[in-house]
């Protein structure tokens, strides 16, 4: 009899648990659906998703060289040897330019993310509102420290101090964006977090609710060193052809880069796997192909870097390619996690409301093509100028002049079309 009652109670309890979970998943699902913007997406969500993944990868490359560059700078400044001092300045320069690129490239994933995952992004940002704003403030401060380091680069101790402060702020910035990305993955906890279980409303915006150290290490800290290591190999490769550069120094820097890339790559792999182990079981992530592809990518990349140790300059481009593939697979894995998490509540970007529209995608396409012509010309000229020894002027060839004329032409054409369309619309609507 006692057993019967016990079993009966257990049955009721498990029913409550499961039923409660269903009801709860329903609530969270309804909330996510309600949050998705009623304006709908102006274009196929899958396109947004692909662009988000691709541009995130580009963003991260320069985030890594910003932070990694500073690590090398700081270490280099502690060394007496001339080549370390020289390297410290070179990676400082790299870091300085990279922050700009990281910022502009970060804008694109931010756009696409907010179109298809608006419930996740806006909630997570608002849960930690002050931190989200401080992201900008800290980035500004950090970047000015890096410029400060750059302007004082001939006073190593001063410059090192500035670099240390710069990297600390950037790591803090990375911490905040990490928190925002990470909190976003737990919709079932948002209300609980925000209301302290129903006791209040945390309107102050000062709370941080979730952090995962392995994710932070594997998405930010280790790759920074590894990717910058690969950049040093590229540095070796690019400047070798310039006769006013010191070959021994370049080869040394390339070797250093290859070695750092290898050791940091191992750290990256380990922290990545540890992160995978912390993912909740009900997402089904551990059995997913995307998870293991990301690990495989890292292993392959480590292999290429391992075989580059002897001749880093020659292996610079293959290492870059291998690294890009690994990073792309990680970007896909990160996106897969969002899909896996939100699928638990029936949210899918593929069923996002559509308000299809073709003119603005066309504008983007046209602008992108125009931009690509311009980028090609500008970057090519910069590449040539960089290869020209100090004190000499690079004279453009006939073809380069043509490309230059073309890029001026397409940019002006773009402006005329843009304003012309505007005039027509305004005259039609208000004339």
């Amino acid at each position: 009899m006692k057993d019967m009652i016990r079993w009966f109670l257990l049955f009721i309890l498990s029913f409550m648990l499961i039923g409660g979970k269903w009801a709860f998943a329903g609530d969270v699902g309804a909330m996510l659906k309600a949050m998705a913007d009623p304006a709908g997406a102006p274009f196929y969500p899958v396109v947004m998703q692909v662009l988000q993944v691709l541009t995130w990868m580009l963003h991260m490359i320069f985030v890594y060289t910003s932070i990694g560059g500073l690590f090398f700078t700081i270490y280099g400044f502690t060394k007496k040897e001339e080549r370390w001092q020289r390297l410290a300045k070179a990676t400082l320069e790299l870091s300085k330019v990279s922050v700009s690129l990281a910022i502009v490239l970060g804008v694109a994933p931010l756009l696409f993310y907010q179109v298809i995952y608006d419930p996740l992004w806006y909630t997570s940002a608002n849960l930690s509102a002050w931190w989200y704003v401080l992201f900008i403030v800290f980035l500004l401060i950090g970047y000015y420290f890096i410029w400060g380091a750059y302007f004082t680069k001939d006073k190593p101790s001063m410059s090192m101090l500035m670099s240390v402060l710069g990297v600390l702020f950037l790591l803090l910035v990375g911490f905040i964006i990490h928190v925002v990305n990470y909190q976003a993955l737990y919709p079932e906890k948002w209300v609980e977090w925000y209301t302290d279980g129903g006791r209040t409303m945390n309107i102050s915006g000062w709370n941080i609710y979730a952090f995962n150290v392995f994710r932070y290490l594997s998405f930010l800290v280790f790759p920074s060193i590894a990717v910058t290591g690969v950049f040093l190999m590229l540095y070796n490769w690019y400047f070798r052809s310039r006769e006013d550069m010191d070959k021994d120094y370049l080869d040394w820097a390339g070797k250093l880069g290859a070695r750092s890339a290898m050791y940091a790559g191992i750290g990256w792999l380990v922290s990545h796997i540890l992160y995978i182990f912390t993912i909740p079981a009900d997402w089904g992530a551990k059995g997913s192909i995307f998870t293991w592809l990301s690990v495989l990518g890292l292993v392959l990349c480590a292999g290429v870097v391992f075989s580059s140790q002897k001749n880093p300059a020659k292996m610079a481009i293959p290492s870059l390619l291998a690294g890009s593939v690994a990073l792309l697979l990680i970007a896909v894995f990160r996106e897969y996690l969002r899909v896996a998490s939100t699928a638990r509540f029936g949210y899918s970007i593929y069923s996002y409301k559509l308000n299809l529209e073709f003119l603005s995608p066309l504008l983007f396409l046209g602008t992108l093509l125009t931009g690509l012509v311009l980028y090609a010309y500008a970057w090519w000229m910069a590449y040539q100028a960089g290869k020209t020894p100090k004190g000499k002027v690079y004279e453009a060839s006939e073809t380069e002049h043509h490309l230059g004329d073309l890029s001026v032409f397409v940019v002006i054409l773009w402006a005329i079309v843009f304003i012309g369309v505007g005039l027509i619309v305004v005259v039609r609507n208000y004339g």
Partner: protein
Amino acid sequence: MDVLGFYPMWYVPVVGSGFVIAIIAAIHVMASHTSVGASILLAYLATKAYRENQPQIYDYIKKYLLGLLVFSYVSGSITGPGIWFSATVVNPRGISALIHNFVWVWAAEWVWFIAEVTLVYILFYTLGKIDQKSWLRLAWTFAISSWATMYIIVGILSFMLSPGHEKWFTTGSILDAFYNKNYFPHLLERTSYMFAIAGTVGLAIAALMKKDLPEKVYKDIVKTLSYWGIGGIVFGLMFFAWYVSTLPERSHVILEKVIPLYLKLPIMLIILVVLAHFVLAAVRPQAVRFWMAYPIYALIFFMGVYPEEKIRETIRKPYVAGEFVWVNQIISRDVPAKGIKSEVPVIDQKGLLTVNPFVPEGLKKINSQNEIMAGKAIAILQCSGCHNVTGSTGLRPFGQKFAGMTDPNAVYGFLTSYLRDNHPPYMPKLVGTDEEIKALSAYIAHMISKGGSVSAKIEVPNTSAEAKKEVQP
């Protein structure tokens, strides 16, 4: 259960969360207008250097470019996303409405943004390292790319104020939304003033280099900048008048009745100062001084750009986007073309607290125990975008607006007859169930009787689990 897509609310006591946007936006406007204006001025100067064979002008250009990189690009490229970041936590549904309409337009701007940022570095590093003609081409593409970012953002900013035409609500056409009534005057006004801003800092840089440049070159540069600057101010004023004439009705009311003189007057003053400075520089280039030009540049920020941003933000009220999203995040009208429905009827029927998923269960059903706290939550959710709802200082504080009203019934009468049934053009209609308005009244009367200031903390008597149990016995 009915839920609407609200996000967790962020409340900044006293000054209000909008203040955070205003500061970041003002820095951004200053930096971006300096950069865009300078990109065109520098391309023009470089052309002059090339045509008239005055290579010393390049020394000036190089200094200016470095200044731009360090001051404008660093702060401009960070505060640009910064406006967006701060808007995300102040007005998530407003920014979301913009992004869902204009994502591709923004993506197009991004193409130019990349061009701009990479070109400023490339121009700086390749000056004197590639032939003049190639450099000149890069300088002009840089100038047009920079200006193109303005072509784009101005359309979105204007749409925030108003789609301009009723048509958009039924066509939903991106062209109608973007090229709205306000677009061209707004674009031309900014384009004009940016030359005055970039010209002023240009004079400061020229003054610093007076000793290093031959007199003729120096004079040439100063005069060129001054003419552009004078033109910028004159045209800016003209386009401003046009801009004002395209504002919607409510903005005119706000401009007259709500915007205080201490925001309008400094703008007029600084315009005069900048103009006088350019005239002086054009007539007597040698008289230009760094210690004069630079402070004037700084004053443009405090007396011109910051008040302008505040005013622009205020005349948009009570909306944050396209005349269908209110400052308090509520969607207030149908947009048939997009299938967007006004949320006001649902809220009036079910209650604001009920439909917001981030309101604790224990506040959703109002009783004598939780009434004050429920009222506080309503005030924060519905009014804090424009009012300090927990004090009597700072942003249009409730402590002052309701001074003396310690009787809940009196507050209730005022709220219903004024804000709910007959709201002014600068405020959204008061929404919610009758019990909710009573709770809001009780809270307001309570805070006034406490001296007009209470803590912003919301304390719920019951946890969510307990509250749920009560509802389903």
